[in-house]
């Protein structure tokens, strides 16, 4: 991608109109094929989960334990990512099926669906990569851009990022409580408490299900079932953390300041979403397993278009970017994840004093601290 990119030099509104056209085309063509995709996927995911739990019951056979744990891991990943995340975005609301609708869906994650829809769909997707606005940036506790002032605590961030990966679902749930906003009065403690209770209720059900009820049902296989479930939950956490961090933090992904939001037009909004997002290359199965967040760019441009369409429109979006001279950040999982970790490690240390060439140009960061 070009190192010095100036959004002012392109016709952002024409770019926006082209993207609107793609969006309208997809919306107009939604139909039976898409409905069959999501229904088939949900049925497959549930069968896979049942198969995984059944195999774990026979886990005195080591291969059964491995196969059951793997099946359960994949089922949990599908449930959270390609199904849950996308249903909660309202991508499937057009079907008017109350069983597959953003207002009725609940998922197997510590964050209650309602809280997630606020913090993710609204806060993150609206203020994508805007410092001080998008709470996804560094999850507050992390320093991922030189614009964040350094503090000795960041020396530990490689360690706690690894810890966060393991316990990602709890990290997100606690993070969504916005506890750091309470002292300044920007968050009502009563509201935070009510949210915390909802999170606790969800976590309780999860713990009873995965670590008590199913192990007890397995009788003598209590321990292998418990360990299988624990492994599946943690593997899902690490996978989700990896994919999600590759979405906005690889090298080249831009971070913006609040002044950028002033009078932001539709076209400029599209450009910000594009510059703040990164794709991961891969095959069809990989895209499904990543919840199509491997098409993070397309997802951020069109968060409510069904995820099965992102792969179809990606080449068109990429061609548009080339035509308008805009960067389109895409790379292999190894490259993007490696880039994220390099950034986490580099930012743990003080500096750099001025943004390196690949970092966002200074003009978009003029009010940074």
């Amino acid at each position, binding site marked *: 991608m070009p190192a010095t990119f100036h959004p002012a030099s392109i016709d952002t509104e024409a770019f926006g109109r082209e993207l609107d056209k793609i969006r309208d085309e997809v919306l107009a063509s939604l139909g039976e094929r898409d*409905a069959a995709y999501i229904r088939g996927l949900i049925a497959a995911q549930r069968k896979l989960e049942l198969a995984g739990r059944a195999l774990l019951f026979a886990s005195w056979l080591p291969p059964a334990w491995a196969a059951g744990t793997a099946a359960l891991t994949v089922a949990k990943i599908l449930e959270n990512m390609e199904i849950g995340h996308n249903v909660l975005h309202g991508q499937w*609301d057009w079907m008017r099926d109350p069983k597959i*609708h953003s207002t009725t869906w609940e998922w*197997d994650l510590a964050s209650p669906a309602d809280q997630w829809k606020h913090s993710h769909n609204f806060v993150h997707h609206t203020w994508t990569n805007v410092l001080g606005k998008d709470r996804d940036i560094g999850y507050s506790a992390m320093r991922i851009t030189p614009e964040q002032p350094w503090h000795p605590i960041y020396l530990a961030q490689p360690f706690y990022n690894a810890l966060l990966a393991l316990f990602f679902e709890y990290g997100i749930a606690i993070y969504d409580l916005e506890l750091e906003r309470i002292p300044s009065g920007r968050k009502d403690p009563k509201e935070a408490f009510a949210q915390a209770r909802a999170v606790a209720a969800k976590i309780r059900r999860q713990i009873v299900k995965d670590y008590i009820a199913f192990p007890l049902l397995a009788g003598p296989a209590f321990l292998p079932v418990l360990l299988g479930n624990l492994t599946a939950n943690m593997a899902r956490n690490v996978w989700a953390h990896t994919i999600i961090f590759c979405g906005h933090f690889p090298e080249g992904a831009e971070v913006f300041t609040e002044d950028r939001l002033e009078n932001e037009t539709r076209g400029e909004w599209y450009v910000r979403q594009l510059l703040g997002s990164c794709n991961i290359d891969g095959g069809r199965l990989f895209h499904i397993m990543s919840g199509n967040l491997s098409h993070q760019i397309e997802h951020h441009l069109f968060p409510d278009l069904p995820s099965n369409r992102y792969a179809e429109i990606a080449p068109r979006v990429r061609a548009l970017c080339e035509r308008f001279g805009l960067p389109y950040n895409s790379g292999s999982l190894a490259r993007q994840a490696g880039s994220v970790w390099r950034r986490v490690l580099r930012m743990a240390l003080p500096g750099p004093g001025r943004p390196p060439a690949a970092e966002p140009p200074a003009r978009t960061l003029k009010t940074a601290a």
Partner: protein
Amino acid sequence: MILTRASTSPATVLRRLSAAAHWLTSPLLPEDYLSLINPLWATRELCGRVEAVHAETSDAATLTIRPGRGWITHRPGQWVRIGVDIDGRRHWRTFSLSSAPGSSGDCVTVTVKAVRGGLVSNHLVRHTVVGTVLRLGRPEGAFVLPEPPPPRLLFVTAGSGITPVMAMLDGLRLDDVDGPDIVLVHSAPTPDDVIFGRRLRSLAARHSRLRLHERHTRAEGRLRPADLARLCPDWTERSLWVCGPPAMLDDIAARWTGPADGLHVERFSLAPAAAAGSGGRVRFTRSGRETEADGGTPLLAVGESAGVLMPSGCRMGICYRCVARLRSGQVRDVRTGQVHGETGDMIQTCVSAAAGPVEIEL
């Protein structure tokens, strides 16, 4: 001990088992997994499987449906909401049940006439295959005969208006000497267009207490109340049950001189007011959806197109299943053209269109 027996009744055991199973399936319900095997086992969302499709006329068909768990036995004359997925989207319409309970085994039937330009009716008549799973509402409606039925009955029907009456005839013991004396006056364009034509003619031939008058409107013109007096001189002394197009219902109601509780009408369609005003921006506050609406489209349809889960029922302003709270703005009643509404009003979304910007709590 009575206490012990009460707490271990089969219903209690089942409820406890289901609550226990919910801990294993959370955040889903046990039935979300059970319906992978058989969708008819779901009770939160009542389903029915199409077991047979039978063509009645060139544009009407009877669907035999096996309802799933949770179905409540209907009364002849009632209607049911049916949800069908067409091109990935769910559509709900209401249809009269055309059979009496028990006459088709565990199944019920609905008879659908394909109306010109009607997406759902055409799909059901022409593209439904055996095995299709439909969503069902509960049987509803007050167009039902009292028990015991009145001694002298007159049914006046037109087109698909015969369907609830067919269910009633199905439920009456026509060969009973003490059974009611029945006159049925049915209108259809030609003899071939008479839904259940062969069955009705055969019933009338076999049962002296059922007299059938077919009115073939293409040759004889529309039925007038004056014709009714000629065909059935004691018509105002009978218990009268009318089902057909709005004009026919209004015509007959205007000329009815019998007791007010002797006339029963069932409407099948909404008759919109002549002129629609300008619409506006509609916001559904709970789901956060916003869309533009014209002044003639009911908010129910507006919300459905926007992907909002709209509660719905008869879709013609009768049953109040679709009511929702008005947060702001005003609405126009599409039947009368009257503009009304204050914040907090419960409005019927199926007959209310936007009159300017509107916010609905859904």
